[in-house]
């Protein structure tokens, strides 16, 4: 629980530091923003592995093979990376680059879940 307070503190301190430098040298403030975001994502990822373990347990208990679960995990990873990259680009004032990063992330997530969708299609065909 104290991780939340630590993250909030780091975020606020980082935001004020970035604001302090923004007027004199905006590119430095972007670097500080990137550093704070990377730090927070690292803490976030350290909490995600027990949740992933639980998901895998759930899938094993339900009898779903892990090849069906992996597109889901890949889509989550793609979502995290593309969202953070696009938000940093928006902070830098490049909202068009951010929009294209998001679009590519969406397309990649669909591409990665194609095996899942084709196996659902097979299932539906075999029922009919």
């Amino acid at each position, binding site marked *: 629980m104290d991780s939340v307070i630590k993250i909030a503190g780091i975020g606020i301190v980082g935001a004020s530091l970035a604001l302090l430098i923004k007027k004199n040298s905006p590119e*430095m403030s972007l670097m*500080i923003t990137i*550093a704070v975001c990377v730090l927070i994502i*690292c803490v976030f990822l350290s909490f995600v592995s027990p949740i992933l373990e639980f998901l895998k347990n759930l899938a094993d208990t339900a009898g779903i093979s892990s090849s069906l679960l992996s597109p889901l995990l890949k889509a989550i990873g793609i979502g995290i990376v593309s969202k953070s990259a696009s938000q940093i680009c928006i902070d830098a004032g490049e909202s068009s680059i951010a929009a294209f990063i998001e679009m590519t992330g969406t397309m990649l997530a669909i591409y990665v879940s194609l095996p899942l969708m084709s196996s659902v299609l097979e299932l539906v065909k075999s029922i009919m």
Partner: protein
Amino acid sequence: MNVDLIFKIAAIGIVVAVLNQVLKKSDRDEQATMVTLAGLIVVLMIIVQQISDLFALVKTLFNL
């Protein structure tokens, strides 16, 4: 990956900003630009290392 990194980058940023202002006031604009550029490159080298660590972590965690 600890908080000291942010303070290091913030310190470099503040030093670069102050040097920038001082050089601009004493009418040496090219040197000011070069100082800003050098500070940017130093900070970028630190950050790119951290970003590559982060993406390797995401890759192993999500089996990408």
